[in-house]
Protein backbone atom coordinates (compact mmCIF):
# COMPACT_ATOMS: atom_id res chain seq x y z
CA UNK A 1 0.00 0.00 0.00
CA UNK A 2 1.30 3.48 -0.77
CA UNK A 3 0.83 6.61 1.34
CA UNK A 4 -2.72 7.13 0.03
CA UNK A 5 -3.75 3.64 1.03
CA UNK A 6 -3.90 2.50 -2.60
CA UNK A 7 -2.56 -0.84 -3.75
CA UNK A 8 0.04 -1.09 -6.51
CA UNK A 9 -2.21 -3.30 -8.61
CA UNK A 10 -5.79 -4.04 -7.73
CA UNK A 11 -8.43 -6.12 -9.48
CA UNK A 12 -11.96 -5.25 -8.40
CA UNK A 13 -14.82 -7.66 -9.17
CA UNK A 14 -13.44 -8.74 -12.52
CA UNK A 15 -15.74 -10.82 -14.73
CA UNK A 16 -15.17 -12.23 -18.19
CA UNK A 17 -17.58 -14.05 -20.47
CA UNK A 18 -16.93 -15.90 -23.69
CA UNK A 19 -20.35 -16.04 -25.30
CA UNK A 20 -22.53 -17.72 -22.72
CA UNK A 21 -19.58 -19.26 -20.88
CA UNK A 22 -18.59 -17.62 -17.61
CA UNK A 23 -14.80 -17.67 -17.60
CA UNK A 24 -14.40 -15.45 -14.52
CA UNK A 25 -16.91 -14.13 -12.02
CA UNK A 26 -16.28 -11.33 -9.51
CA UNK A 27 -12.58 -11.85 -8.90
CA UNK A 28 -11.09 -9.36 -6.45
CA UNK A 29 -7.50 -9.27 -5.29
CA UNK A 30 -4.48 -7.01 -5.08
CA UNK A 31 -0.70 -6.99 -4.86
CA UNK A 32 1.87 -4.53 -3.51
CA UNK A 33 5.58 -4.09 -3.96
CA UNK A 34 7.60 -6.69 -2.10
CA UNK A 35 4.71 -9.15 -2.00
CA UNK A 36 3.75 -12.32 -3.81
CA UNK A 37 0.11 -12.95 -4.64
CA UNK A 38 -0.54 -16.48 -5.83
CA UNK A 39 -3.39 -17.31 -8.19
CA UNK A 40 -4.20 -20.98 -7.73
CA UNK A 41 -6.54 -23.17 -9.66
CA UNK A 42 -6.87 -26.39 -11.58
CA UNK A 43 -7.02 -26.53 -15.37
CA UNK A 44 -10.01 -24.57 -16.62
CA UNK A 45 -10.38 -22.64 -13.38
CA UNK A 46 -9.89 -19.33 -15.16
CA UNK A 47 -6.25 -18.66 -14.34
CA UNK A 48 -5.19 -17.87 -17.88
CA UNK A 49 -8.22 -15.63 -18.49
CA UNK A 50 -7.28 -13.74 -15.36
CA UNK A 51 -3.64 -13.13 -16.33
CA UNK A 52 -4.65 -12.16 -19.84
CA UNK A 53 -6.79 -9.44 -18.29
CA UNK A 54 -4.05 -8.32 -15.91
CA UNK A 55 -1.47 -8.23 -18.70
CA UNK A 56 -3.71 -6.29 -21.10
CA UNK A 57 -4.18 -9.07 -23.66
CA UNK A 58 -7.93 -9.23 -22.91
CA UNK A 59 -10.33 -6.67 -21.48
CA UNK A 60 -12.69 -7.55 -18.61
CA UNK A 61 -16.43 -7.49 -19.30
CA UNK A 62 -17.15 -6.27 -15.77
CA UNK A 63 -15.05 -4.87 -12.97
CA UNK A 64 -12.11 -2.54 -12.76
CA UNK A 65 -8.32 -2.61 -12.67
CA UNK A 66 -6.49 0.01 -10.65
CA UNK A 67 -2.79 0.87 -10.64
CA UNK A 68 -1.69 3.01 -7.65
CA UNK A 69 -5.38 3.56 -6.92
CA UNK A 70 -6.09 4.99 -10.37
CA UNK A 71 -8.44 3.14 -12.66
CA UNK A 72 -6.76 1.90 -15.84
CA UNK A 73 -8.00 0.33 -19.07
CA UNK A 74 -5.41 -1.75 -20.93
CA UNK A 75 -6.07 -1.96 -24.66
CA UNK A 76 -2.98 -4.07 -25.26
CA UNK A 77 -0.02 -5.65 -23.44
CA UNK A 78 1.91 -2.55 -24.45
CA UNK A 79 -0.34 -0.39 -22.25
CA UNK A 80 0.24 -2.72 -19.32
CA UNK A 81 4.00 -2.68 -19.89
CA UNK A 82 3.94 1.13 -19.91
CA UNK A 83 2.52 0.94 -16.37
CA UNK A 84 5.36 -1.37 -15.35
CA UNK A 85 3.42 -4.61 -15.56
CA UNK A 86 5.54 -7.31 -17.18
CA UNK A 87 4.30 -10.78 -18.01
CA UNK A 88 6.61 -13.77 -18.38
CA UNK A 89 4.83 -16.46 -20.38
CA UNK A 90 5.95 -20.01 -20.03
CA UNK A 91 6.53 -20.59 -23.75
CA UNK A 92 7.09 -17.12 -25.09
CA UNK A 93 9.96 -16.02 -22.93
CA UNK A 94 13.04 -16.60 -25.06
CA UNK A 95 14.48 -17.40 -28.50
CA UNK A 96 16.28 -20.73 -27.96
CA UNK A 97 18.88 -20.40 -30.72
CA UNK A 98 20.07 -16.98 -29.52
CA UNK A 99 22.63 -16.37 -26.82
CA UNK A 100 21.63 -15.27 -23.32
CA UNK A 101 22.87 -11.70 -23.76
CA UNK A 102 21.13 -11.30 -27.13
CA UNK A 103 17.89 -12.58 -25.61
CA UNK A 104 18.19 -10.43 -22.52
CA UNK A 105 18.28 -7.20 -24.51
CA UNK A 106 16.05 -8.30 -27.39
CA UNK A 107 13.82 -5.38 -28.36
CA UNK A 108 15.72 -2.98 -26.07
CA UNK A 109 19.30 -3.22 -27.31
CA UNK A 110 21.75 -0.76 -25.78
CA UNK A 111 23.47 1.18 -28.54
CA UNK A 112 26.40 3.46 -28.91
CA UNK A 113 27.84 5.32 -31.84
CA UNK A 114 28.77 8.58 -33.48
CA UNK A 115 26.51 10.70 -35.66
CA UNK A 116 24.24 8.53 -37.80
CA UNK A 117 26.18 5.34 -37.01
CA UNK A 118 25.03 3.22 -34.13
CA UNK A 119 25.76 -0.28 -33.13
CA UNK A 120 24.63 -2.82 -30.58
CA UNK A 121 26.91 -2.30 -27.60
CA UNK A 122 27.57 -5.98 -27.00
CA UNK A 123 30.31 -5.46 -24.42
CA UNK A 124 27.97 -3.44 -22.21
CA UNK A 125 25.17 -5.94 -22.83
CA UNK A 126 27.31 -8.86 -21.71
CA UNK A 127 28.56 -6.99 -18.65
CA UNK A 128 25.02 -6.03 -17.57
CA UNK A 129 23.74 -9.56 -18.12
CA UNK A 130 26.49 -11.04 -15.99
CA UNK A 131 25.90 -8.48 -13.23
CA UNK A 132 22.10 -8.70 -13.22
CA UNK A 133 22.07 -12.47 -13.24
CA UNK A 134 24.60 -12.74 -10.46
CA UNK A 135 22.65 -10.20 -8.39
CA UNK A 136 19.64 -12.45 -8.75
CA UNK A 137 21.87 -15.30 -7.69
CA UNK A 138 21.74 -16.94 -11.11
CA UNK A 139 24.99 -18.62 -11.94
CA UNK A 140 25.50 -18.48 -15.71
CA UNK A 141 28.72 -19.96 -17.01
CA UNK A 142 28.86 -17.92 -20.19
CA UNK A 143 26.49 -15.22 -21.51
CA UNK A 144 27.37 -16.38 -25.04
CA UNK A 145 25.63 -19.69 -24.41
CA UNK A 146 22.50 -20.32 -26.48
CA UNK A 147 19.35 -20.11 -24.38
CA UNK A 148 18.28 -23.46 -25.84
CA UNK A 149 21.05 -25.15 -23.87
CA UNK A 150 19.71 -23.81 -20.57
CA UNK A 151 17.34 -25.87 -18.50
CA UNK A 152 13.70 -24.80 -18.31
CA UNK A 153 14.22 -23.38 -14.83
CA UNK A 154 17.27 -21.37 -15.85
CA UNK A 155 15.38 -20.00 -18.81
CA UNK A 156 12.49 -18.84 -16.64
CA UNK A 157 14.99 -17.31 -14.24
CA UNK A 158 16.71 -15.33 -16.99
CA UNK A 159 13.30 -14.11 -18.17
CA UNK A 160 12.48 -12.99 -14.62
CA UNK A 161 15.82 -11.21 -14.27
CA UNK A 162 15.19 -9.48 -17.59
CA UNK A 163 11.76 -8.21 -16.55
CA UNK A 164 13.15 -6.94 -13.25
CA UNK A 165 16.07 -5.21 -14.95
CA UNK A 166 13.76 -3.40 -17.36
CA UNK A 167 11.90 -1.84 -14.48
CA UNK A 168 8.95 -4.13 -13.95
CA UNK A 169 7.00 -3.04 -10.85
CA UNK A 170 4.57 -5.91 -11.22
CA UNK A 171 5.78 -9.25 -12.50
CA UNK A 172 3.15 -11.71 -13.71
CA UNK A 173 4.47 -15.25 -13.97
CA UNK A 174 2.38 -17.72 -15.95
CA UNK A 175 2.93 -21.23 -14.57
CA UNK A 176 6.70 -20.77 -14.36
CA UNK A 177 7.17 -24.03 -12.48
CA UNK A 178 4.63 -26.31 -14.10
CA UNK A 179 6.91 -27.95 -16.66
CA UNK A 180 9.81 -28.31 -14.25
CA UNK A 181 11.18 -31.01 -11.99
CA UNK A 182 11.31 -30.57 -8.23
CA UNK A 183 14.79 -29.12 -8.09
CA UNK A 184 14.34 -26.80 -11.07
CA UNK A 185 11.05 -25.56 -9.66
CA UNK A 186 12.88 -24.78 -6.41
CA UNK A 187 15.38 -22.69 -8.35
CA UNK A 188 12.59 -20.63 -9.94
CA UNK A 189 10.84 -20.17 -6.59
CA UNK A 190 14.09 -18.80 -5.22
CA UNK A 191 14.21 -16.16 -7.97
CA UNK A 192 10.61 -15.22 -7.31
CA UNK A 193 11.67 -14.40 -3.76
CA UNK A 194 14.72 -12.52 -5.07
CA UNK A 195 12.48 -10.37 -7.25
CA UNK A 196 10.13 -9.79 -4.29
CA UNK A 197 13.03 -8.73 -2.09
CA UNK A 198 13.98 -6.15 -4.70
CA UNK A 199 10.57 -4.55 -4.18
CA UNK A 200 8.76 -6.07 -7.13
CA UNK A 201 5.11 -7.05 -6.79
CA UNK A 202 4.80 -10.63 -8.02
CA UNK A 203 1.68 -12.38 -9.28
CA UNK A 204 2.44 -16.06 -9.43
CA UNK A 205 0.01 -18.28 -11.34
CA UNK A 206 0.23 -21.97 -10.60
CA UNK A 207 -1.83 -25.10 -10.10
CA UNK A 208 0.58 -26.44 -7.49
CA UNK A 209 -0.17 -25.41 -3.88
CA UNK A 210 3.17 -26.87 -2.77
CA UNK A 211 4.95 -24.35 -4.99
CA UNK A 212 2.68 -21.49 -3.99
CA UNK A 213 2.60 -21.87 -0.22
CA UNK A 214 6.31 -21.34 0.59
CA UNK A 215 6.60 -18.11 -1.43
CA UNK A 216 3.12 -16.55 -1.32
CA UNK A 217 1.89 -13.77 0.95
CA UNK A 218 -1.66 -14.03 -0.33
CA UNK A 219 -3.58 -16.77 -2.09
CA UNK A 220 -6.50 -16.47 -4.48
CA UNK A 221 -8.12 -19.79 -5.24
CA UNK A 222 -10.09 -20.10 -8.45
CA UNK A 223 -12.50 -22.88 -9.23
CA UNK A 224 -14.62 -22.95 -12.38
CA UNK A 225 -14.23 -19.20 -12.83
CA UNK A 226 -15.29 -18.37 -9.28
CA UNK A 227 -13.07 -17.25 -6.47
CA UNK A 228 -13.14 -19.53 -3.45
CA UNK A 229 -11.70 -16.64 -1.51
CA UNK A 230 -8.57 -14.60 -0.96
CA UNK A 231 -6.47 -15.65 1.99
CA UNK A 232 -3.54 -13.96 3.68
CA UNK A 233 -0.82 -16.40 4.61
CA UNK A 234 -1.70 -16.00 8.32
CA UNK A 235 -5.25 -17.12 7.63
CA UNK A 236 -4.53 -20.44 5.98
CA UNK A 237 -2.19 -23.38 6.39
CA UNK A 238 -0.80 -25.65 3.74
CA UNK A 239 -3.28 -28.49 4.28
CA UNK A 240 -6.21 -26.14 3.99
CA UNK A 241 -4.76 -24.64 0.81
CA UNK A 242 -4.31 -28.07 -0.75
CA UNK A 243 -7.82 -29.04 0.33
CA UNK A 244 -9.40 -25.92 -1.15
CA UNK A 245 -7.37 -26.26 -4.33
CA UNK A 246 -8.61 -29.75 -4.97
CA UNK A 247 -12.14 -28.64 -4.28
CA UNK A 248 -12.46 -30.03 -0.73
CA UNK A 249 -15.23 -32.55 -1.13
CA UNK A 250 -13.75 -33.96 -4.32
CA UNK A 251 -10.45 -34.57 -2.60
CA UNK A 252 -12.16 -36.29 0.31
CA UNK A 253 -13.91 -38.56 -2.19
CA UNK A 254 -10.64 -39.22 -3.96
CA UNK A 255 -8.94 -40.11 -0.69
CA UNK A 256 -11.78 -42.46 0.12
CA UNK A 257 -11.47 -44.15 -3.28
CA UNK A 258 -7.72 -44.46 -2.96
CA UNK A 259 -8.08 -46.04 0.45
CA UNK A 260 -10.56 -48.51 -0.98
CA UNK A 261 -8.15 -49.42 -3.79
CA UNK A 262 -5.32 -49.79 -1.29
CA UNK A 263 -7.48 -52.08 0.85
CA UNK A 264 -8.18 -54.26 -2.19
CA UNK A 265 -4.52 -54.49 -3.14
CA UNK A 266 -3.36 -55.46 0.34
Amino acid at each position, binding site marked *: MNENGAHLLEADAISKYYGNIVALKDITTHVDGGEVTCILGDNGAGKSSFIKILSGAHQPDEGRLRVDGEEVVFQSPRDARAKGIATVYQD*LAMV*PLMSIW*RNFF*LGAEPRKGYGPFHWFDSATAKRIVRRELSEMGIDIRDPDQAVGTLSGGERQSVAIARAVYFGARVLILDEPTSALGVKQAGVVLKYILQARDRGVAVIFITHNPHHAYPVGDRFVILNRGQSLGTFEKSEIDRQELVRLMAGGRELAELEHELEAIQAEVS
Partner: protein
Amino acid sequence: MAETAAPPAHPDERLVRVGPLARLLTRPDIGAFVGALGVYLAFGYFARGVDWLGDPGIAANWTDQAAQYGIVAVPVALLMIGGEFDLSAGVMIGSSGLLLGYLTTHADMNIWPAILLVLLFGLAIGFINGYTVVRTKLPSFIVTLATFFVLQGVNAAGTLKLTGQTAIQNIDSASGFDSARRFFASDVTTYGFKVKVIWWIGITIVGAWLLAKSRFGNWIYSAGGEPNSARNVGVPVARTKITLFMMTSGIAALMGIIEALELRSMQSKEGIGLEFIFIICAVVGGCLLTGGFGSVIGTFFGAAMLGMVQLGIVDAQWDSNWTYTFQGAILFAAVLLNTAIRARMRRAR
Protein backbone atom coordinates in the same frame (compact mmCIF):
# COMPACT_ATOMS: atom_id res chain seq x y z
CA MET B 1 7.58 -30.79 0.45
CA ALA B 2 10.32 -32.85 2.03
CA GLU B 3 13.31 -33.46 -0.18
CA THR B 4 14.18 -37.11 0.23
CA ALA B 5 17.05 -37.63 -2.21
CA ALA B 6 20.19 -35.53 -1.92
CA PRO B 7 20.51 -33.23 -4.93
CA PRO B 8 23.53 -33.74 -7.19
CA ALA B 9 26.58 -31.84 -6.02
CA HIS B 10 26.84 -29.66 -9.11
CA PRO B 11 24.07 -29.34 -11.67
CA ASP B 12 26.40 -28.40 -14.53
CA GLU B 13 28.76 -31.34 -14.42
CA ARG B 14 27.65 -32.54 -17.83
CA LEU B 15 28.59 -29.26 -19.44
CA VAL B 16 32.06 -29.11 -17.98
CA ARG B 17 33.10 -32.05 -20.12
CA VAL B 18 32.49 -30.14 -23.36
CA GLY B 19 35.95 -29.29 -24.62
CA PRO B 20 37.07 -26.33 -26.74
CA LEU B 21 36.87 -28.39 -29.93
CA ALA B 22 33.22 -29.26 -29.38
CA ARG B 23 32.52 -25.60 -28.61
CA LEU B 24 34.19 -24.57 -31.85
CA LEU B 25 31.99 -27.03 -33.71
CA THR B 26 28.86 -25.20 -32.58
CA ARG B 27 30.00 -22.21 -34.63
CA PRO B 28 28.01 -22.13 -37.86
CA ASP B 29 30.88 -21.03 -40.11
CA ILE B 30 33.51 -23.62 -39.26
CA GLY B 31 32.05 -26.31 -41.52
CA ALA B 32 32.09 -24.00 -44.53
CA PHE B 33 35.67 -22.92 -43.84
CA VAL B 34 36.92 -26.50 -43.50
CA GLY B 35 34.93 -27.50 -46.59
CA ALA B 36 36.31 -24.66 -48.71
CA LEU B 37 39.86 -25.45 -47.58
CA GLY B 38 39.29 -29.12 -48.37
CA VAL B 39 37.99 -28.39 -51.88
CA TYR B 40 40.91 -26.02 -52.52
CA LEU B 41 43.46 -28.64 -51.52
CA ALA B 42 41.63 -31.44 -53.34
CA PHE B 43 41.76 -29.57 -56.65
CA GLY B 44 45.43 -28.93 -55.97
CA TYR B 45 45.71 -32.66 -56.57
CA PHE B 46 43.01 -33.30 -59.21
CA ALA B 47 43.79 -30.21 -61.28
CA ARG B 48 47.55 -30.71 -61.19
CA GLY B 49 47.66 -30.21 -64.98
CA VAL B 50 47.54 -26.51 -64.10
CA ASP B 51 49.15 -24.69 -61.17
CA TRP B 52 45.85 -24.65 -59.23
CA LEU B 53 47.34 -23.82 -55.85
CA GLY B 54 49.88 -21.22 -56.97
CA ASP B 55 48.71 -19.46 -60.14
CA PRO B 56 47.01 -16.11 -59.33
CA GLY B 57 45.34 -16.17 -62.75
CA ILE B 58 43.46 -19.31 -61.75
CA ALA B 59 42.51 -17.79 -58.42
CA ALA B 60 41.20 -14.77 -60.34
CA ASN B 61 38.97 -17.12 -62.34
CA TRP B 62 37.40 -18.91 -59.45
CA THR B 63 37.03 -15.81 -57.28
CA ASP B 64 35.20 -14.20 -60.23
CA GLN B 65 32.77 -17.12 -60.21
CA ALA B 66 32.55 -17.14 -56.41
CA ALA B 67 31.81 -13.41 -56.32
CA GLN B 68 28.94 -13.91 -58.73
CA TYR B 69 27.44 -16.33 -56.21
CA GLY B 70 28.65 -14.67 -53.02
CA ILE B 71 27.42 -11.10 -53.48
CA VAL B 72 23.73 -12.04 -53.54
CA ALA B 73 24.24 -14.98 -51.17
CA VAL B 74 24.97 -12.50 -48.33
CA PRO B 75 21.47 -10.96 -48.20
CA VAL B 76 19.94 -14.36 -49.03
CA ALA B 77 21.69 -15.73 -45.92
CA LEU B 78 20.44 -12.85 -43.76
CA LEU B 79 16.94 -13.43 -45.11
CA MET B 80 17.19 -17.16 -44.29
CA ILE B 81 18.35 -16.37 -40.76
CA GLY B 82 15.30 -14.09 -40.61
CA GLY B 83 13.20 -17.13 -41.45
CA GLU B 84 12.35 -16.52 -45.11
CA PHE B 85 13.40 -17.51 -48.64
CA ASP B 86 13.66 -15.53 -51.85
CA LEU B 87 13.41 -17.66 -54.97
CA SER B 88 13.22 -14.55 -57.16
CA ALA B 89 16.78 -13.48 -56.30
CA GLY B 90 18.20 -15.18 -59.41
CA VAL B 91 15.77 -13.87 -61.99
CA MET B 92 16.08 -10.39 -60.45
CA ILE B 93 19.64 -10.28 -61.81
CA GLY B 94 18.28 -10.71 -65.32
CA SER B 95 15.40 -8.26 -64.83
CA SER B 96 17.74 -5.58 -63.49
CA GLY B 97 20.35 -6.02 -66.18
CA LEU B 98 17.67 -5.90 -68.88
CA LEU B 99 16.12 -2.82 -67.32
CA LEU B 100 19.52 -1.13 -67.32
CA GLY B 101 19.91 -2.12 -70.96
CA TYR B 102 16.49 -0.75 -71.83
CA LEU B 103 17.05 2.55 -70.02
CA THR B 104 20.43 3.15 -71.65
CA THR B 105 19.90 1.85 -75.19
CA HIS B 106 16.19 2.58 -75.76
CA ALA B 107 15.44 5.45 -73.36
CA ASP B 108 18.89 6.99 -73.99
CA MET B 109 19.63 7.67 -70.35
CA ASN B 110 23.06 8.31 -68.92
CA ILE B 111 24.28 5.16 -67.20
CA TRP B 112 24.48 6.63 -63.68
CA PRO B 113 20.86 7.75 -63.26
CA ALA B 114 19.87 4.51 -64.98
CA ILE B 115 21.81 2.56 -62.33
CA LEU B 116 20.02 4.48 -59.61
CA LEU B 117 16.63 3.67 -61.14
CA VAL B 118 17.51 -0.02 -61.42
CA LEU B 119 18.50 -0.14 -57.75
CA LEU B 120 15.19 1.50 -56.80
CA PHE B 121 13.40 -1.06 -58.97
CA GLY B 122 15.18 -3.83 -57.01
CA LEU B 123 14.14 -2.33 -53.69
CA ALA B 124 10.55 -2.01 -54.92
CA ILE B 125 10.33 -5.67 -55.97
CA GLY B 126 11.79 -6.63 -52.58
CA PHE B 127 9.20 -4.52 -50.83
CA ILE B 128 6.41 -6.21 -52.79
CA ASN B 129 7.78 -9.65 -51.87
CA GLY B 130 8.20 -8.76 -48.21
CA TYR B 131 4.91 -6.92 -47.81
CA THR B 132 3.01 -9.79 -49.45
CA VAL B 133 4.67 -12.39 -47.21
CA VAL B 134 4.07 -10.40 -44.03
CA ARG B 135 0.48 -9.47 -44.84
CA THR B 136 -0.77 -12.78 -46.25
CA LYS B 137 1.33 -14.94 -43.89
CA LEU B 138 1.85 -17.26 -46.88
CA PRO B 139 5.17 -19.12 -47.03
CA SER B 140 7.78 -16.92 -48.72
CA PHE B 141 8.71 -19.96 -50.78
CA ILE B 142 5.39 -19.68 -52.65
CA VAL B 143 5.22 -15.89 -52.82
CA THR B 144 8.70 -15.48 -54.27
CA LEU B 145 8.20 -18.46 -56.60
CA ALA B 146 5.31 -16.49 -58.07
CA THR B 147 7.52 -13.38 -58.39
CA PHE B 148 10.16 -15.55 -60.04
CA PHE B 149 7.79 -16.80 -62.74
CA VAL B 150 6.18 -13.42 -63.34
CA LEU B 151 9.59 -11.79 -63.85
CA GLN B 152 10.85 -14.67 -65.98
CA GLY B 153 7.96 -14.11 -68.39
CA VAL B 154 8.41 -10.36 -68.39
CA ASN B 155 12.15 -10.72 -69.08
CA ALA B 156 11.69 -13.04 -72.06
CA ALA B 157 8.64 -11.41 -73.64
CA GLY B 158 9.82 -7.85 -72.98
CA THR B 159 13.27 -8.45 -74.47
CA LEU B 160 11.83 -10.11 -77.57
CA LYS B 161 9.33 -7.32 -78.15
CA LEU B 162 11.98 -4.66 -77.67
CA THR B 163 14.84 -6.07 -79.73
CA GLY B 164 13.41 -8.98 -81.68
CA GLN B 165 16.18 -11.03 -80.06
CA THR B 166 16.77 -12.85 -76.76
CA ALA B 167 19.20 -10.22 -75.51
CA ILE B 168 19.73 -6.49 -75.21
CA GLN B 169 23.05 -5.59 -76.87
CA ASN B 170 25.31 -2.55 -77.02
CA ILE B 171 24.88 -1.37 -73.47
CA ASP B 172 28.40 0.08 -73.86
CA SER B 173 26.99 2.72 -76.22
CA ALA B 174 25.52 4.50 -73.19
CA SER B 175 27.06 7.74 -72.04
CA GLY B 176 29.09 7.30 -68.87
CA PHE B 177 29.52 3.58 -69.53
CA ASP B 178 33.30 3.53 -69.08
CA SER B 179 33.26 5.27 -65.72
CA ALA B 180 30.54 2.93 -64.47
CA ARG B 181 32.32 -0.14 -65.76
CA ARG B 182 35.50 0.89 -63.99
CA PHE B 183 33.58 1.15 -60.74
CA PHE B 184 31.54 -2.05 -61.02
CA ALA B 185 33.09 -4.47 -63.45
CA SER B 186 36.73 -3.86 -64.32
CA ASP B 187 39.90 -5.82 -63.58
CA VAL B 188 41.88 -4.80 -60.52
CA THR B 189 45.33 -6.20 -61.16
CA THR B 190 47.48 -7.61 -63.89
CA TYR B 191 46.31 -11.12 -62.97
CA GLY B 192 42.75 -10.23 -63.92
CA PHE B 193 41.10 -10.18 -60.51
CA LYS B 194 37.70 -8.57 -60.94
CA VAL B 195 36.54 -5.53 -58.99
CA LYS B 196 33.48 -7.70 -58.38
CA VAL B 197 35.59 -9.63 -55.86
CA ILE B 198 36.06 -6.44 -53.84
CA TRP B 199 32.30 -5.90 -53.89
CA TRP B 200 31.87 -9.47 -52.68
CA ILE B 201 34.29 -9.00 -49.78
CA GLY B 202 32.85 -5.58 -48.93
CA ILE B 203 29.23 -6.78 -48.88
CA THR B 204 30.27 -9.77 -46.78
CA ILE B 205 31.93 -7.49 -44.22
CA VAL B 206 28.90 -5.20 -44.06
CA GLY B 207 26.52 -8.18 -43.79
CA ALA B 208 28.58 -9.87 -41.08
CA TRP B 209 28.81 -6.60 -39.15
CA LEU B 210 25.06 -6.03 -39.40
CA LEU B 211 24.32 -9.50 -38.10
CA ALA B 212 26.82 -9.53 -35.25
CA LYS B 213 27.05 -5.94 -34.16
CA SER B 214 23.84 -4.09 -34.93
CA ARG B 215 20.44 -3.98 -33.28
CA PHE B 216 18.98 -4.98 -36.64
CA GLY B 217 21.10 -8.15 -36.47
CA ASN B 218 19.54 -9.09 -33.15
CA TRP B 219 16.12 -8.59 -34.71
CA ILE B 220 17.05 -10.79 -37.69
CA TYR B 221 17.97 -13.69 -35.39
CA SER B 222 14.80 -13.33 -33.34
CA ALA B 223 12.49 -12.89 -36.36
CA GLY B 224 13.66 -16.25 -37.67
CA GLY B 225 14.17 -18.02 -34.36
CA GLU B 226 10.93 -17.40 -32.48
CA PRO B 227 8.90 -14.60 -34.06
CA ASN B 228 6.17 -14.74 -31.41
CA SER B 229 8.62 -14.29 -28.55
CA ALA B 230 10.29 -11.49 -30.49
CA ARG B 231 6.99 -9.66 -31.04
CA ASN B 232 6.21 -10.17 -27.38
CA VAL B 233 9.27 -8.14 -26.36
CA GLY B 234 8.67 -5.42 -28.93
CA VAL B 235 10.78 -6.41 -31.96
CA PRO B 236 9.22 -5.06 -35.21
CA VAL B 237 9.27 -8.47 -36.88
CA ALA B 238 7.30 -7.46 -39.98
CA ARG B 239 9.51 -4.44 -40.65
CA THR B 240 12.63 -6.55 -40.18
CA LYS B 241 11.47 -9.13 -42.72
CA ILE B 242 10.40 -6.54 -45.31
CA THR B 243 13.79 -4.83 -44.97
CA LEU B 244 15.53 -8.17 -45.55
CA PHE B 245 13.51 -8.82 -48.72
CA MET B 246 14.39 -5.33 -49.95
CA MET B 247 18.08 -5.90 -49.26
CA THR B 248 17.97 -9.19 -51.19
CA SER B 249 16.27 -7.80 -54.29
CA GLY B 250 18.32 -4.60 -54.09
CA ILE B 251 21.62 -6.49 -54.08
CA ALA B 252 20.38 -8.84 -56.80
CA ALA B 253 19.76 -5.66 -58.83
CA LEU B 254 23.33 -4.56 -58.07
CA MET B 255 24.53 -7.92 -59.39
CA GLY B 256 22.46 -7.38 -62.55
CA ILE B 257 24.12 -4.00 -63.01
CA ILE B 258 27.58 -5.53 -62.56
CA GLU B 259 26.86 -8.25 -65.12
CA ALA B 260 25.36 -5.88 -67.68
CA LEU B 261 28.42 -3.63 -67.40
CA GLU B 262 30.83 -6.54 -67.57
CA LEU B 263 29.23 -8.33 -70.53
CA ARG B 264 28.04 -5.14 -72.30
CA SER B 265 24.85 -7.02 -73.10
CA MET B 266 22.15 -8.91 -71.19
CA GLN B 267 20.53 -12.24 -72.03
CA SER B 268 16.83 -12.55 -71.17
CA LYS B 269 17.48 -15.84 -69.34
CA GLU B 270 20.30 -14.41 -67.22
CA GLY B 271 20.27 -15.31 -63.53
CA ILE B 272 17.68 -18.07 -63.70
CA GLY B 273 18.81 -21.02 -61.58
CA LEU B 274 21.14 -18.93 -59.42
CA GLU B 275 18.47 -18.59 -56.69
CA PHE B 276 19.20 -22.15 -55.63
CA ILE B 277 22.96 -21.59 -55.74
CA PHE B 278 22.54 -18.65 -53.33
CA ILE B 279 20.54 -20.86 -50.98
CA ILE B 280 23.19 -23.59 -51.20
CA CYS B 281 25.89 -21.02 -50.29
CA ALA B 282 23.84 -19.93 -47.27
CA VAL B 283 23.14 -23.49 -46.13
CA VAL B 284 26.81 -24.46 -46.55
CA GLY B 285 27.54 -21.34 -44.50
CA GLY B 286 25.53 -22.78 -41.63
CA CYS B 287 22.11 -21.16 -42.15
CA LEU B 288 19.25 -23.33 -41.00
CA LEU B 289 16.33 -23.78 -43.40
CA THR B 290 14.05 -23.11 -40.44
CA GLY B 291 15.69 -19.74 -39.68
CA GLY B 292 17.16 -18.23 -36.56
CA PHE B 293 20.70 -19.37 -37.04
CA GLY B 294 23.50 -18.94 -39.57
CA SER B 295 26.54 -16.97 -40.60
CA VAL B 296 27.51 -14.46 -43.25
CA ILE B 297 31.19 -15.41 -42.98
CA GLY B 298 30.20 -19.05 -43.48
CA THR B 299 28.19 -18.05 -46.55
CA PHE B 300 31.33 -16.34 -47.91
CA PHE B 301 33.21 -19.64 -47.67
CA GLY B 302 30.21 -21.45 -49.14
CA ALA B 303 30.33 -19.21 -52.19
CA ALA B 304 34.11 -19.66 -52.42
CA MET B 305 33.65 -23.42 -52.31
CA LEU B 306 31.06 -23.45 -55.10
CA GLY B 307 33.20 -21.09 -57.20
CA MET B 308 36.18 -23.41 -56.82
CA VAL B 309 34.13 -26.48 -57.72
CA GLN B 310 32.80 -24.77 -60.86
CA LEU B 311 36.26 -23.84 -62.16
CA GLY B 312 38.15 -26.76 -60.62
CA ILE B 313 36.09 -29.34 -62.49
CA VAL B 314 37.06 -27.64 -65.75
CA ASP B 315 40.72 -27.38 -64.75
CA ALA B 316 40.73 -31.05 -63.74
CA GLN B 317 39.38 -31.77 -67.24
CA TRP B 318 36.30 -33.53 -65.97
CA ASP B 319 32.91 -33.28 -67.64
CA SER B 320 31.52 -29.99 -66.33
CA ASN B 321 28.08 -31.60 -65.89
CA TRP B 322 29.47 -33.11 -62.68
CA THR B 323 29.26 -29.62 -61.17
CA TYR B 324 25.57 -30.14 -60.41
CA THR B 325 26.27 -33.44 -58.69
CA PHE B 326 28.95 -31.80 -56.58
CA GLN B 327 26.63 -28.95 -55.65
CA GLY B 328 23.96 -31.43 -54.61
CA ALA B 329 26.39 -33.50 -52.56
CA ILE B 330 27.76 -30.38 -50.84
CA LEU B 331 24.23 -29.22 -50.01
CA PHE B 332 23.32 -32.59 -48.56
CA ALA B 333 26.47 -32.79 -46.43
CA ALA B 334 25.89 -29.23 -45.19
CA VAL B 335 22.28 -29.90 -44.19
CA LEU B 336 23.32 -33.00 -42.24
CA LEU B 337 26.05 -31.05 -40.46
CA ASN B 338 23.70 -28.16 -39.64
CA THR B 339 21.09 -30.50 -38.24
CA ALA B 340 23.70 -32.07 -35.97
CA ILE B 341 24.83 -28.63 -34.77
CA ARG B 342 21.30 -27.52 -34.03
CA ALA B 343 20.59 -30.73 -32.14
CA ARG B 344 23.66 -29.95 -30.04
CA MET B 345 22.40 -26.44 -29.34
CA ARG B 346 18.89 -27.52 -28.46
CA ARG B 347 19.97 -30.40 -26.25
CA ALA B 348 19.60 -30.19 -22.48
CA ARG B 349 16.30 -28.39 -22.73
